[in-house]
């Protein structure tokens, strides 16, 4: 279980003080799939970094399975918003994906299998020997996704992971994440700015307010567990939920809670 309690983060670099997060409290059960939406610059990335133990909060606590997070917990995989910078340019695509597995001491054969599967799943079979900078933006982002997928994490943090891919690929990747989640029972925290995506993917959607950031609202997505791109999105309940989220986000941008409709 992931517990975030009273989380606050103030950046102070170069004389500039920014309160990125004011007071966040929420919990995520193990094996849950939670989507996080919020206006640009509201502190989503900051939150993810705190949860991953990459950033020290100013106050408040983050606990994973009862232990306070101080460094990246084992079994965690993260897809960074800056996908381009999170790939190592000196390694080929294959090496980029397999490096974390090597660290996990996955035997060579299994590693190759996992890497091939993951690259296949994101549609990058055949680019194994390329370097990241020889790929298009969307392809780079998919390499980063493949790396997280191949890792078979127990906690998966994704920061706008589909921002650079086309609509069709995006739909495929959404289904990939749901399949992975169902197969491995992994806890997923997924940041997106696409409201439809949040509702389609998540079992819950947490909405953040704009700065100073608090949890604006939270809904449970009571759509059936078996979802598919055509039918789920056509579901009237889907439309209802997305409208609700949309209104909350607009309210968040205006800086006050919308009357819940």
């Amino acid at each position, binding site marked *: 279980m992931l517990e975030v309690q009273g989380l606050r983060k103030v950046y102070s670099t170069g004389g500039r003080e920014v309160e990125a997060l004011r007071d966040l409290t929420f919990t995520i059960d193990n094996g849950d799939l939670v989507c996080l939406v919020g206006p640009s610059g509201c502190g989503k990335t900051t939150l993810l*970094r705190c949860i*991953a*133990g*990459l950033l020290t909060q100013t106050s408040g606590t983050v606990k994973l399975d009862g232990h306070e997070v101080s*460094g*990246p917990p*084992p079994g*965690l*995989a*993260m897809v*960074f918003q*800056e996908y381009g*910078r*999170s*790939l*190592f*340019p*000196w*390694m080929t695509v294959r090496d980029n994906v397999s*490096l*974390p597995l*090597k*660290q*996990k001491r996955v035997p060579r054969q299994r590693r190759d299998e996992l890497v091939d599967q993951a690259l296949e799943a994101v549609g990058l079979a055949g680019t194994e020997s390329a*370097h990241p*900078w*020889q790929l298009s933006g969307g392809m780079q982002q998919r390499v980063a996704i493949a*790396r997280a997928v191949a*890792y078979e994490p127990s906690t998966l*943090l994704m920061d706008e992971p589909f921002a650079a891919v086309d609509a069709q690929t995006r739909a495929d990747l959404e289904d990939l994440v749901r399949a992975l989640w169902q197969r491995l029972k992994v806890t997923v925290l997924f940041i997106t700015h696409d409201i439809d995506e949040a509702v389609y993917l998540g079992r819950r959607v947490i909405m953040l307010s704009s700065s100073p950031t608090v949890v604006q609202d939270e809904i449970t997505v009571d759509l059936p567990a078996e979802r598919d791109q055509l039918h789920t999105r056509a579901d009237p309940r889907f439309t209802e939920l997305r409208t609700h989220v949309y209104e909350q986000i607009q309210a968040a941008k205006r800086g006050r809670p919308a009357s819940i409709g």
Partner: protein
Amino acid sequence: MKRFLYVAGLPILLFFGWFVLSNGSENFYAPPLRDILRAFVDTWTPQRLNDDVLPSLLRLLSGYVLAAALGIAVGVAIGLNRRLRATVEPVLEFFRAIPPPVLVPVIMLFAGIGNGMKVIVIVFGCVWPILLNTVEGVRAVDSVQLDTAKAYGVRGFARIRTVILRSASPQIAAGLRQALSIAIILMVISEMFAASNGLGFTIVQFQRSFAIPEMWSGIILLGLLGFALSLLFRLAESWALRWYHGLRDAQRKS
């Protein structure tokens, strides 16, 4: 052909200019290039190369390799650890500012007068560019790359090897390149003490015995040596950093 022109064009031009300008030189210390070239052929016989240049080269290479290993290892440690950096930086700067010629006697106290001393002098002189560049390169590793490594549990030696060193490698290469020519310079300086053979020793000896064309021919040989070594270095670098050059050239040229 074009490549050859690039590589050889300017040197040929300069040599030609030198040749013409020095042709009628009466100055004892700046003899005509003609004489220098003649001295070059007479002086650097295979026998001489074997007796004097080879030992120098061996000392040079062992010193350089040691300096590279030491500079990178210490540089990574210092670059990664802020407290360590604050502690040892003044001491390192202290030693860095001491001219090797005055330090040689102190090194001799501990290392004797054999090849060991000369190698240490070379290490002592050429470790600095490697060390400094490694420190700066390590400090400049992209924060997102570091975070990625951290998040995926790439830590300890693997993190240093697969992320930090690779990311810093362009700057480390700059240091290694600098160190190479400094190593040659230090080779000469180290042979000014307690030596009885070597290229540097021979040049100094020529200088002292007023064999000026021979001395210049030795300096030219040093230049050629440096050029050859840097050629080798560039080959090694373009292999080790092919990702980097590819990355930088990708959009630029194509």
